[in-house]
Structure formats: C-alpha cells, structure tokens
C-alpha cells in the first residue's frame, strides 16, 4: 500500500474508533453477547445435569445450538440495529461537512478511498465479534466442545449478513443528504426485513410468504442449523454487492448526470442479479453440522440420489400445524436436497380443529407418488417415511452403520465471568474510543 492510502486508512480507522456510534456498537455487543452467553451456559448446564448420567439425554446436548447460536444470536441484533450507524457515519458525516468534496479531489482514486472506508467499517464489525470469541474461549477453557465447521458456518452467515447490511447502508448514505434520514431509511429496510420474516413465520400460508424472498433475516437461518446453502450465500452476496457497488458508483461520479449514474447502477444491478439467478439453478449445499441434522444418514443419501424419476409428495397439512413443521424439517427439506427430482405440494383438504383433531378424514394423510404408484402415510418421521419411498422406488432400505451423535453435556458456571463482558471489555472499548478521540499532546506547530 502506498503512503497516501496508508494515511487514509489510518485516518478512517481513527475516525471510526472515535465515533460514538462505533463505541455503542462495541459496548452493546459486549453486553448483549455476554448476556446471551451466560444465559445459554446456565440453560445448557441445567439440561446437562440430567444428561450426564443418561446417554439418551446426552445426545440432545449439542453445544452448537445450545451455546454458539444463542451467543452469536446477539450479533444479529447488533448488525441489524447498530452496525448501520457506523457505516452511515463513515459517509454521511463527510458529506455534511463538505469533506467528501475534498476527498473526491485527493490524488488517490475515489473508488480506492471508498474501498478503504468499506474495509474500515467491516473491520469494526469484526471487532464487535471479539466478545463472542472471548465467550468461545471461556467455553473451551471449561472443557466445552466447539466444532470448527459449525463455528465457521455460523460466522459465515453473520459475516454475509453484515456484508449485505453494509452495502445497503453505503447505498442509502450515498443517496441521502443527512445522516438522520439515512439512519431512518436503513432501519426501515433492516427492521422491515425482520418484520417480514416474523410475519412469514407466523402466517406461513398467506400471501406474505410470497414476499419471504425479500427477507434478509431468513437467509441466516440455514447457517444457524449448520447448513451452507448456495442460495442463501448468493442472496446475501448479491444484495451486498448490488447495493454497495451502486453506492460506490453514485458517490464516485458526482460530475456525471443522474441519468448516466442510474444507467451504470442499473447495469451493475442487472449483472449481479443475472449471476445470482443463474447460480440459483445449480443449488449446492454443505451440511457442516456435527450431528448432520440437516441430512439423512450417508447410506440413505447415497441411495436417494439414485432415484431417477420424479417423486411427487402431496402434504395434507395446514402450514400452521406443528406436524407440518416436523415433516418439513425432518423429511421434506432433506429429501429436496437428496433426491434429484422431487416436487412437494400442499393440498388443502381441511383444517385442523382447535384441539388438533382433523375435521376432515383426509387431513394429515400425506401422499407419495412415484412412477404412477401411490402410497399414503400420516407419519412425519423419516424412520417411517423413507421405507415408503424405497418401496415406491423398488429399492431395499440400506443398512445404516453411522454412529449416533453422543452429545457434549457440560456443567459450568459462567456467572462469575460476567465482569469480563459487563466491565473489562467495555472498558477496553472505552479506552480505544478515548485514545482516538483525545487531543494529542501538542507542543507547538512542529508536532507530528
């Protein structure tokens, strides 16, 4: 890196570290992640007391969903509600003070200056995950188990989400005149995405579901199950790239007419969307969960991949029915990834009554069709449904030799370490803020 770029990067980091929005991001991330971790350890410990003596219970003691997901869950809140302010500060402040006009004239390409800003803001997000690293370090020090693949899957999900939020914040900061209006607009987008996700999960059968693809929140869900889906990765990447690059283009060519800038923004958006849509035709996935909760046993997967014809499944359950969620999670989503050609449709035969008893006899009787042969079942368990599919396909169910997940119960007490998250780390962050915010010792005009 040449000297001017180095100076700009130093200045950008100093400016970010001395901003109150960054201080809030760091301190609140420490509080929230620490609180989430301590609560998670308490609950995990309660459950582990019974599980330590009973193997069957121990298999349910999964540190990924018991510790990692709730600890890093606070990161989602922080990225949604606080991180945009850091990104907006980086652009809007300089716009309001006319400093942006000076930066546009520096002997460094403005696209490079914006890239430096982008890196600086993303570095701040990364620093806000330090409390999570501390929590995981404590967990490991107590003898807890962390699967590296699961940890990186979860971090990848949060990092991609932050990437998308950063792009959106950059674009909105670029097109608005003040930081207040930029903050309002970004929050409308991020909270809107969250509300949409909430509406979809509570009204899963309604028209709202057709808008679910707009929700960024939904894209993190697979990562929280240890599943990397190309569809989720591409969606977050495309959102981050389209918005971020559009913001870059809008800011870096102030002398070009709005029409010409809009044309370039549209070209970038169309290219990214085309790449996104094209790659969605090749769905890829990797189940990195240690207990392989997102996949059938390897023997089943191998056999299911050999089903060449179209497998049609008709589900006669209301999407609000808990059994629908069971079959969706334990069977359908896994089949969709394993069987080459499968179609699932939901047929509305009737609705479950208030007490869960079907008002229609056909309600809950799910239908499986393969090459003209049809079988029905009321089960939602893969243990009963996979043999149905094998029978239809004329296959013999395989011998499953995979060892069962044994679980990692652990009794620990996190409460005495609360001071690390509630006092020590916030003080470190406060020191970092003060160091960059202070007026340096000044001895006349020659001080460097």
């Amino acid at each position, binding site marked *: 890196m040449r000297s001017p770029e180095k100076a700009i990067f130093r200045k950008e980091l100093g400016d970010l570290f001395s901003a109150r929005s960054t201080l809030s991001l760091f301190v609140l991330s420490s509080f929230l992640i620490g609180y989430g971790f301590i609560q998670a350890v308490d609950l995990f410990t309660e459950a582990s007391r019974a599980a330590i003596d009973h193997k069957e219970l121990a298999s349910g003691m999964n540190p990924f969903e018991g510790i990692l997901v709730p600890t890093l869950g606070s990161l989602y809140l922080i990225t949604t509600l606080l991180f945009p302010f850091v990104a907006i500060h980086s652009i809007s402040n300089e716009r309001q003070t*006319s400093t942006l006009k000076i930066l546009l004239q520096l002997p460094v390409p403005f696209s490079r200056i914006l890239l430096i800003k982008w890196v600086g803001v993303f570095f701040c997000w990364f620093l806000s995950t330090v409390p999570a690293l501390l929590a995981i370090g404590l967990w490991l020090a107590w003898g807890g188990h962390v699967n590296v693949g699961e940890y990186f899957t979860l971090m990848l999900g949060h990092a991609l989400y932050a990437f998308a939020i950063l792009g959106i914040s950059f674009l909105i900061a670029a097109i608005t005149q003040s930081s207040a209006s930029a903050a309002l607009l970004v929050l409308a987008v991020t909270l809107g995405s969250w509300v949409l996700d909430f509406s979809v999960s509570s009204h899963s059968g309604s028209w709202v579901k057709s808008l679910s693809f707009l929700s960024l929140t939904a894209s993190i869900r697979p990562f929280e199950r240890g599943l990397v889906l190309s569809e989720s990765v591409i969606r977050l990447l495309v959102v981050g790239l389209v918005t971020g690059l559009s913001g870059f283009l809008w800011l870096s060519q102030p002398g070009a007419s709005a029409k010409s800038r809009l044309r370039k923004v549209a070209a970038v958006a169309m290219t990214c969307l085309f790449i996104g849509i094209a790659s969605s035709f090749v769905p890829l996935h990797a189940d990195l969960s240690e207990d392989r909760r997102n996949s059938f046993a390897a023997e089943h997967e191998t056999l299911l991949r050999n089903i060449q014809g179209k497998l049609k499944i008709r589900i006669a359950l209301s999407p609000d029915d808990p059994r629908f969620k069971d079959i969706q999670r334990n069977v359908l989503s896994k089949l969709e990834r394993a069987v080459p050609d499968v179609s699932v449709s939901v047929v509305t035969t009737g609705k479950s009554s208030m007490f869960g008893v079907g008002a229609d006899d056909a309600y809950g009787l799910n239908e499986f069709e393969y090459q003209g042969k049809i079988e029905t079942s009321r089960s939602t368990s893969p243990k009963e449904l996979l043999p149905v599919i094998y029978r239809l396909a004329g296959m013999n169910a395989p011998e499953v030799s995979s060892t069962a997940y044994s679980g990692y119960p652990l009794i620990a007490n996190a409460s005495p370490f609360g001071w690390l998250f509630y006092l020590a780390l916030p003080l470190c962050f406060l020191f970092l803020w003060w160091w960059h915010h202070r007026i340096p010792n000044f001895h006349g005009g020659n001080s460097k």
Partner: protein
Amino acid sequence: MSMESSVFQAKEISKRYGNSFALTNISFTLTAGQVTGLIGPNGSGKTTLLEIGAGLLPADSGIVQVSGRNVPPTERRNHLFYLPDHLIPYPDCAAMKVRNFFCDVFSIDFQTRERITELTGIGPVLGKRVGQLSKGFKKRLGLAISLWSPQPILLLDEPFDGFDLRQTLSIMEVLKDTAKAGRTLLLSIHQLMDAERVCDRLVLLNQGRLVAQGNLDDLRNQAKTPGSGLEEVFLALT
C-alpha cells in the same frame, strides 16, 4: 487577453434545476499565474459554476478545457482543486491531526507544511478540535489544505468570508504570492471591495448569466464609467 496564456477555459456552461436556469451559456478563461474573481450577488450561480468546473456537479451542457484539451469531469481533479465554502474537515479531530493527514496524502515535506501553517496562521489552533474553531480559523485551515494540494489551478469559494479587514488583507497577500509562484486562482467573491483589491481579472455573473469579463479597466469601458470603482461598474452593468 491572448488565448495562448489561458490555462483554463469554460465554454457554454449551462445548468438547470427543474425549470429554473442556474447558469446560461457561461464562457470564461483563466490565465496562468493570475487571480481571477468570480463576482456576483448571492444566488448568481458562482458556487454552481465552481463545482461544475471542478467536476463535482454535472452540467447540462458545455465543456471545460485545461491547456487547450477537453477534460471530462472525472479527470478534472488532476488539474483543479476546489475549496468549498462551508468546509469543516473532521470536526471531532484536532486541527493538527487534520493538517498531518492532508500533508501525508499530498506527500508534503516538512518545510512546506510548516511554511503554509505559518502563512495561514493556523499554528495557534492546531491543538483544538476543528469543530470548535472560529469561522475564520476553519476558513484558514481550508485555505491551508488548498495550498498543500498539488493541483495547479485553485477554485476557492468565498475565501474571505468570516475574516475581519486585517485578516482579509493578510490572506489576500498569501493568495497573491501563491499566484506569483505560478498557480492559477479563481475566487468566488460577493464583496466587491475585496474583489477589487485582490483580483487581476474579473468575471461578473448575475442571475446565472455572464455580464462581463476582463480587468477592471475593461469593465469600466464596457460600463462606460471611467475612473469608477467595481461597485459602480457592477451596478452599471447589471
């Protein structure tokens, strides 16, 4: 004024905001090593013209040439440095940090940095936050940044705004010396007395239209007011 010595030419610049014209077919030239004043009342289009010249605002039509070559907006920062009127660079930072930052980016040596610090008189306030500086010192800091910039042509928007008479006179001397050293200056000024004191040439704008350009004698001749000051000339021409 001969075309050979002109280092900057704006030709037929027009700009419209909605239905109202901010600038209508403005053409003027800047001569190397001279101080040119862009004169006009508030709202006459001075800032718009400077920002278009610097490539920071799109024009609806017109071209800008530097040394006879067309320069698109994206390349103008290689030749021109524009200092906006209400610049407050990094208000939470100490002025010294801001000074050092710009000197690092412009690769300014120690002697030049200190010379311009002294010329602009910002030395005593380097230990203060930029946001806490008086309007005059903010202006001086901005001026220092423009003097550290490497571009040969400086476009300064209202460089004397916020100064008292003594300060204005001392900054005028700095700008005259800068022009003598070979840089070309275009100053947007709404105080006609100030313009008369510092400018070698004048470009008069009124309601987005070019009224006249030339040195004071040329303008007097156009206004048919021999021996009068710029104020009388301006009133006669507009």
